[in-house]
């Protein structure tokens, strides 16, 4: 039942104090005539409604959430506590700079720590999400070449295993996207070489890549990219595997975006807010968006980089998310961040080995913090799709992996356990997967009709998109209906 269905005319969950100023009348021609149909409920109604909804949600606090490329690690409670300190929560972006010094200090220090982790020279904290960071990065690439009068560079190369946001972000800036083939799960260096010419502005990569493999030819790739005059862009979605081991800057990347909601444990919030800081090497610092935070003697100042691409978001970025990432980095420290990568990689390799006993894992060798399995064989023999497997996993009270990504692996299941899951949890998860795969052979219909034990049964996605219903259209109360507007 929706909150609208629970509405009853005359109920209130909020009252205001006595008026202290006189009333003024709004000119008749501006007065809202269209009825404002919001729910009318009491405070207990609201509490029960959203509590009921919360119970219908799976979340990291409920259990393992091994979505590949999403890094759904545990979100420390301290993060929330510090982001809600009054001095961080009750500040206005336009109050005098002098009274924001400590917010600016936090941003400046966070920027420095993220530069250290990525091997970059400066960073903007403004982008609101990873893909927004990609857009910012691509705008920097465009401006860098425009500034040199090198306007032929209209192409951006992305591997066929790339995150979908990479090509989307590049094309939003007007670049033509060219796909590079993979070979044994890695960028095909020969194919890359063929495409590298003076029309290429940038190569976008993530390393480790979306198959969970470290691009071992990365130094060669960087050299080839730079030799043709293009820039190398790092998609930070997979940084969780290499912190404290290797820095993107040292691998030859010129631009990096991070996903603070992934690697740095600020929660994902059902789809956001995230935060996507973008770091750059020295030669690109002047192109960063404004405002940037700089330190001059004892004072922190907002500055405009000389050749700035402009502003990419209002105000300063997703500030509370920055506070959470800052607190996480201080908690972990240099030893903890390295441990994060080590345990993330250990967990992935452990689970991979367990799973490879009953599902095909198409790429050999050690994986980094995630790996891809394929249920192609299961499908061929039983007619059970990866989607059905995922739905049956739900019946076991845990979250399935990412499905059908990357696109180059048929019936893909992409698994990323993260470092915050214990050996016992991984053992249990492998058992569940094995049981489900076995079931596919013994009783495929159970999977095809799954899930059976969730708040709702298999949701009809086809109908949802064919005959879309975008908003609640139930009956309003009789009294309301008479005065309904257009």
């Amino acid at each position, binding site marked *: 039942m929706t909150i609208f269905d629970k509405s009853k005319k005359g109920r209130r969950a909020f009252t205001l104090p006595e008026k202290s*100023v006189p009333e003024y009348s709004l000119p008749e021609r501006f007065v809202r005539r269209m009825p*404002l149909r919001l729910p009318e409920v009491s405070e207990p109604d609201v509490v029960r409604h959203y509590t009921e909804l919360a119970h219908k949600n799976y979340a990291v606090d409920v259990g393992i959430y091994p979505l590949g490329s999403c890094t759904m690690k545990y979100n420390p409670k301290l993060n929330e506590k510090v982001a809600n300190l009054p001095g961080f929560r009750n500040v206005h972006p336009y109050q005098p700079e002098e009274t924001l010094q400590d917010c600016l200090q936090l941003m400046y220090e966070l920027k420095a720590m993220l530069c250290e982790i990525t091997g970059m020279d400066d960073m903007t904290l403004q982008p609101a999400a990873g893909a927004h960071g990609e857009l910012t990065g691509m705008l920097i690439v465009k401006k860098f070449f425009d500034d040199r009068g090198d306007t032929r560079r209209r192409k951006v190369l992305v591997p066929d295993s790339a995150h979908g946001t990479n090509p989307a972000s590049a094309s939003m800036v007007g670049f033509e996207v060219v796909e590079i083939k993979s070979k044994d799960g890695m960028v095909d260096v020969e194919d890359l070489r063929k495409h590298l010419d003076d029309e290429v502005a940038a190569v976008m990569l993530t390393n480790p890549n979306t198959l969970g493999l470290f691009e071992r030819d990365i130094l060669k790739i960087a050299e080839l990219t730079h030799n043709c005059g293009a820039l190398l862009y790092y998609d930070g979605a997979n940084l969780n595997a290499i912190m404290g081991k290797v820095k993107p800057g040292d691998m030859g990347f010129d631009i990096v975006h991070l996903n603070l909601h992934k690697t740095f444990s600020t929660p994902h919030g059902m789809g956001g807010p995230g935060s996507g800081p973008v770091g750059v090497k020295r030669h690109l610092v002047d192109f960063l968006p404004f405002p940037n935070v700089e330190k001059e003697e004892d004072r922190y100042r907002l500055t405009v980089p000389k050749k700035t691409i402009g502003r990419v978001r209002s105000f300063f970025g997703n500030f509370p998310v920055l506070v959470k990432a800052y607190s996480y980095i201080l908690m972990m420290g240099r030893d903890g961040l390295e441990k994060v990568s080590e345990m993330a990689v250990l967990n992935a390799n*452990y689970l991979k080995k367990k799973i490879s006993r009953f599902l095909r894992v198409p790429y050999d060798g050690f994986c980094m913090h995630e790996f891809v399995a394929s249920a192609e064989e299961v499908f061929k023999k039983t007619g059970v799709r990866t989607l059905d497997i995922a739905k049956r996993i739900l019946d076991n009270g845990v979250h399935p992996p990412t499905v059908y990504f990357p696109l180059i692996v048929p019936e893909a299941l992409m698994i990323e356990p993260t470092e915050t899951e214990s050996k016992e949890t991984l053992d249990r998860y492998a058992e569940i997967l094995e049981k489900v795969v076995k079931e596919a052979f013994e009783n495929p219909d159970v999977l095809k009709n799954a899930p059976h034990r969730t708040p709702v049964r298999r949701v009809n996605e086809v109908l949802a998109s064919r005959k879309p219903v975008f908003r609640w259209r139930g009956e309003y109360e009789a009294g309301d209906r008479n005065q309904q507007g257009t």
Partner: protein
Amino acid sequence: MKHPYIPHTEEDIREMLDFIGVSSIDDLFSEVPVSTRSSLNLPKSQDEFTVFTHLKGISKRNADLEEYTVLLGAGIYKRYVPSVVYDLAMKPEFLTAYTPYQAEISQGTLQALFEYQTMVCELTGMEVANSSMYDGATALAEAVLMCFRLTGKEKVLVARSVHSEYREVLGTYLKTRGFRIDEIGYDDTGRVVLEDIDDETAAVVVQYPNFFGVIEDLEYVRKKTQNTMMVVVVEPVSLAILEPPGNFGADVVVGEGQSLGIPMWLGGYSLGIFATREKYVRQMPGRLIGETVDAEGNTSYTMILQTREQHIRRAKATSNICSNHAHAALIAAVYLSVMGPEGLKEVAKRSYDAAHYLQEKLEERGFRKKFSGDFFSEFVFEVPEDYPERWKKMMEKKILGPLPLERMYPELGSVALACATEMTTKDDIERFLEAMR
């Protein structure tokens, strides 16, 4: 050193390495070229008590506006948020959930966002709303890009009375691609003045109420934009008492939803609102939640029209948005459920009343209003030249006064933008007037 978020014991690690068949963790990193390996120059890990104390120390040196009289808005508003709002929104089942890809175990997220979309439609008078954008400014940029896709034209007219940061973000999104942005001016009323609009123009953008707080005449704007798309930037609380843009025939309504229960937080995270007509839905950016049924015919919710999105259409997607601001949309939905139609109207009307009282009192003391147009809860007034200095000094008296506009609008001379909300009391106003003496 043990880390509280990592569960592995030495014994676990040993067993896991043995199972994998390697002798050390380092073996797992054998693909990483040795020449690029380096360690981090960061402090070593600390305990929670130390980190908390450090952050509390930092935060305490900031001005906590809870303790202040605040007469500054300009896009981010200090409003009263009932305790129940944040308490519910912060439930970990919402906060620590991912994008609802698996609908069957994400009905909480999906239903809450579906209800949010409905509430935005009700407020704006539009037919379909998405489940959030990053903020008002990026929502506007995406709205204009959508108008370009729909019309095939590459020029947009933007009122100069639209928030300057929104215009800046729009410029960043559009200019590298060679799209053209022309600015439209305002008159003594503070409202936009529209000339005849040429055939090259895809859309006209106005703000309602505009940055000066003046209520634009949307009937006039629609008449002038017969052959272009009409994009309106809104402050959602005002729509509780103002006729919504949808009823004037707006094509796209965008705005900043921070004032729907979201803390100020230095301006973000906040909430980008995006609503449009159903006929444009396939060109609309961002996530959409729809109602459907499950295998047993029960009402359920799921993400819809994902064929427009980056994970399917890649380079041809309508936008690159992946993570949005779903949690901010949840806060707004809870806030609007708590307020209800009457509560929200009262919040809007109180803001209107307090702003008009403040304006009257300023006028009595000789501070003239800059524009003659009717205003909602913000207005521009003339100030002495030394006002920016006095404004900074007022902070010592715990007053965040109206915003000096010299940087944003040099053409207006010495003026400031005042703002009142439902939290502004007569005492606040008197304290400020005292400080202005």
